[in-house]
């Protein structure tokens, strides 16, 4: 008689904990062939609200850490993903219908992507900031600063590499994130949240909501305590346009929908989209 | 040279304006460096016993009763019933209306009765009420008064008022027989917020005649920290250099472990110097610290780690 395995319950990841949706709703997630995989929590607007509160609470501490420390924490996340390579590979096989070998390469790429971003933490200011020689006796320095709480609509199809490619650039510079995962392929995100919970990432820095972007998106887009909106994963053009319009209420910084080739090396754009520039002047004189 | 008397706001500005600034990062780095000192064996034993003798064992709760205070007093006299060689603490610290109970419970043992006063902890009351509060505590038998400064006055710039209140409270500490309860002045460093403010408030209190400057009421967070205490030790050191008058320092609140206490003693030792290494000039305002000191003391005696069942609750 073969042994029955103990199946995982998939919950949300908010404020460092794993709550079920306050609505009590779930939905069935299927694999690439339509077979049942699991019931994922269906996040409600109240979950989104709670996630924003958690992200705001975590922002000051996370942004206030040294960039070296953030880089080390992100590197540790990569270590933990590597340690769960097989588990992630299985998630990708199930969600995207790839072969095991193909999925393993995707996991490799996701880890390397994460490591690439981790290494930016203590270098961003050197590449995007600078002294400015103004025409007067003043010291003048421009420095990048994280914008705050970023709501992210994760890519619809690319459940791991795409997810990692939108999340890491947001948090490496000190922002905190509320991520709405791919509706159809959310499970790798939950495995990732387990990694985050065990990697010294403070609770609230990343919050992961499995659910429907068309339901949650408007609440996040209109939320006055969200500073920026990454619409990358929004496939429907009209939805994307309306979310961008909603976001104008408090002039969020908006990154419009796109479907990049996630295997290509990124530019700085996904980091700089969520950075402010602060310029400080000071007189020079004895 | 006796300490300058401040007669006007202009005097205050002149004297305090002369004080050197404080660099936050540098101060905190020095405190962190002092915290790396490692005391072993005999040195640790000496430090633990010294720390115990410096504790002002404190209960300042709305729910305090005579029973609670008697229990505290018994613990103050005999912190470790299983070891008579353990020193008693320096004093107990209570609210004014429980001073008499404390005094009776302690008898004529050499353990002081410190009373908070002056509308502790907020200090928000008119001066006559604060004076009456003080006189009441002194009359009930307090040997020491822990007053609070008016932080509102300080932060709104009326430093002369802060000074004059301290002078008035000090006068209220005098007894008919010419003796005087000793005055500790609580700066409430957590509310003063900057190290520059703490330096200025320290000097203001010392010039007004404080016998001790104390960090906190323990009711506001942050309470005592090592950098703030380091700063106050620098102040008392410089004050004695300037005027030949020695003033004590009492960090209070948030000091919970023996490790913490030793860091403070090292800081006293290397900043103000050995003259302050006595309960006469340095105190810990604490409640749970005492049991940790006792457990560490037991470990040094027996070689085994102790637990809560092996120390008494007060």
């Amino acid at each position, binding site marked *: 008689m073969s042994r029955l395995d103990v199946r995982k319950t998939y919950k949300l990841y908010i404020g460092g904990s794993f709550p079920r949706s306050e609505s009590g709703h779930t939905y069935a997630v299927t694999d690439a062939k339509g077979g049942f995989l699991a019931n994922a929590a269906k996040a409600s607007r109240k979950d989104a609200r709670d996630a924003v509160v958690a992200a705001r609470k975590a922002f000051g501490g996370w942004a206030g850490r040294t960039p*070296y420390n953030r*880089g*080390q924490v992100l*590197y540790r996340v990569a270590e933990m993903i590597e340690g769960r390579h097989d588990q992630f590979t299985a998630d990708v096989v199930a969600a995207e219908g790839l072969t095991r070998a193909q999925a393993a390469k995707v996991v490799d790429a996701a880890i390397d992507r994460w*490591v*690439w971003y*981790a*290494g*930016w*933490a*203590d*270098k961003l200011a*050197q*590449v995007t900031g600078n002294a400015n020689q103004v025409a007067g006796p003043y*010291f003048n320095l421009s420095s990048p600063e994280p914008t705050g709480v970023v709501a992210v609509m994760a890519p619809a199809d690319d459940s791991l590499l795409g997810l990692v490619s939108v999340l890491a650039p947001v948090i490496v510079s000190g922002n905190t994130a509320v991520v709405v995962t791919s509706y159809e392929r959310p499970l790798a995100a939950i495995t990732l949240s387990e990694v985050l919970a065990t990697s010294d990432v403070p609770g609230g820095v990343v919050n992961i909501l499995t659910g429907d972007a068309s339901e949650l998106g408007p609440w996040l887009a209109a939320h006055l305590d969200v500073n920026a909106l990454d619409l990358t994963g929004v496939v429907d053009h009209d939805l994307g346009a309306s979310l961008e319009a909603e976001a104008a209420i408090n002039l969020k910084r908006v990154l419009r929908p796109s479907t990049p080739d996630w295997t290509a090396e990124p530019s*700085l754009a996904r980091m700089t989209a969520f950075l402010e520039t602060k310029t400080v002047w*000071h*007189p*020079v*004189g*004895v | 040279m006796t300490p300058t008397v401040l007669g006007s706001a202009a005097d205050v500005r002149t004297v305090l304006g002369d004080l*050197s*600034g*404080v*660099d936050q*990062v*540098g*101060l905190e*780095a*020095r405190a962190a460096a002092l915290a*790396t*000192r*490692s*005391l*072993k*064996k*005999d*040195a640790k034993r*000496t*430090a633990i016993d*010294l720390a115990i003798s410096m504790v002002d064992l404190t209960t300042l709760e709305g729910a305090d009763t005579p029973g609670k205070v008697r229990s505290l007093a018994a613990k103050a006299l005999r912190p470790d019933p299983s070891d008579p060689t353990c020193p008693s603490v320096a004093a107990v610290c209570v609210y004014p209306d429980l001073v008499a109970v404390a005094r009776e419970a302690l008898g004529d043992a*050499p353990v*002081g009765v410190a009373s908070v006063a002056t509308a502790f902890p907020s200090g928000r009351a008119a001066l006559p009420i604060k004076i009456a509060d003080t006189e009441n505590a002194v009359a009930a038998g307090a*040997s020491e008064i822990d007053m609070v400064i008016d932080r509102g006055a300080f932060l709104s710039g009326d430093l002369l008022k802060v000074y004059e209140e301290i002078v008035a409270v000090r006068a209220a500490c005098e007894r008919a027989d010419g003796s005087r309860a*000793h005055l500790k002045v609580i700066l409430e460093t957590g509310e003063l917020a900057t190290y520059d403010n703490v330096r200025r408030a320290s000097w203001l209190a010392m010039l007004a005649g404080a*016998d*001790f400057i104390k960090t906190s009421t323990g009711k506001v967070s942050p309470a005592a920290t090592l950098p703030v205490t380091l700063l106050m030790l*620098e102040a008392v050191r410089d004050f004695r250099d300037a005027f030949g008058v020695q003033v*004590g320092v009492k960090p209070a609140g948030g000091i919970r472990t023996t490790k913490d206490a030793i860091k403070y*003693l*090292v800081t006293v*030792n290397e900043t103000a110097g*050995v*003259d*302050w*290494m*006595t*309960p*006469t*000039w340095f105190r810990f305002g604490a409640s749970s610290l005492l049991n940790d000191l006792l457990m560490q003391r037991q470990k040094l005696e027996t070689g085994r780690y102790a637990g809560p069942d092996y120390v008494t609750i007060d």
Partner: protein
Amino acid sequence: MADHAVPPTPLDYAPAPESRSIVDLQPSYGLFIDGAFTEGADGRTFKTVNPATEEVLAEVTEATDADVDAAVAAARRAFRGWSRMPGRERAKYLYRIARILAERSRELAVLESLDNGKPIKESRDVDLPLVSQWFFYYAGWADKLSYAGLGADPRPLGVAAQVIPWNFPLLMLSWKIAPALAAGNTVVLKPAETTPLTALLFAEICQQADLPPGVVNIVTGAGATGQALVGHPDVDKVAFTGSTDVGRQIARTVAGTDKRLTLELGGKAANIVFEDAAMDQAVEGIVSGIFFNQGHVCCAGSRLLVQENVYEEVMDRLKRRMTTLRVGDPLDKNTDIGAINSREQLDRITALASTGDDEGAERWSPPCELPTSGFWYAPTVFTGVTQAHRIAREEIFGPVLSVLTFRTPDEAVAKANNTPYGLSAGVWTEKGSRILAIADRLRAGVVWANTFNKFDPASPFGGYKESGYGREGGRQGLASYLTSSVLQEGETA
């Protein structure tokens, strides 16, 4: 304060030794060439000694010209694969090394204190964290070179010959190796002859990280080995940290060749204290400026320039502070000042300091009991020093501070700049505009305002004038190990 005053209790700290047992000292060490430890070509060895006790720690191989040749050849062979490896793979090797350095940091710190003489408190809390961080920082550049401001596709130079000093052995190794490897170069490094051991343990760490053989090679030896290495015809880049005299020789050696060169040499930094400094913190800065690492620091604040109107106050506070400095066993956790690295260095310090006495400056040290064996020098302050004194001109490289005064900001700047050196300087004032104005005018590669002796892999470090050229640390630190289309014609060394 109480009715019966209680007499004070003096607090003695008692010995607090860090255990040596974590270090597994071998009786002898070979060279690390092509990924393996090998014996030298002709079996010559020398001893390395614990300067606190004069006990012999180990025998170390002296690399001959043939050994150097083999190491350079190994580096050349490894260069092809290493430079063509995608940056993200090189990065992962360097991250591994950074993590192993962090894992073994206590062991490395104890070994460093044994071999160098510096207090365990410093090797544990300053050197080792920076070592690991240096590798972690540069690991992240390996796959981002196109962002370094050196063009779209900067290329590594090839084989780098790196010679490092004895004052921060493992830290200097990390300053050299991390950026070189991140940029795609391979290296042959020679540690100083009095402090080879942490470099040899680093070689073991390279093995633990599975670093491809030949990427890092360690050749131990003294002056002759160093000369053979920097003069080797198949080396593309030379990086040297050490004395200005040797730096000049190396500059002459590479003249007319294609070898790129960076030098990090001596200094005689001015630590300028203005009347409106935060006094207690300024005193801490003076103390750490000259007594940190026994003053064996190229960027040490060895000249205190104090504004004349606060001279008495500063000196009183400084002397009082110096009485709490603890000189002694480097492995004691409470030691502030350790041993001088060698008999030779001790003699140099003693001789130069005595010129201070001869030339009429006034010497002062706090009372301090020095151990009877080992190499020791008490922290010392000379007052009444002027620019014309030798102790104000020449680098002593020991715990000896020369104190001069100034009247105005202009005079402070003039005196600070009046030296052939230009490595670092300190400025102490609470006035922001003054910090910036003085920093602007100081001819020094590193200006520390209201702090001193702060290092970070993200922060470029290096000197003006005879303190050398090139920068280590930061984005600028990569430039020394890369060639770009911008610099191709008539490149500067």
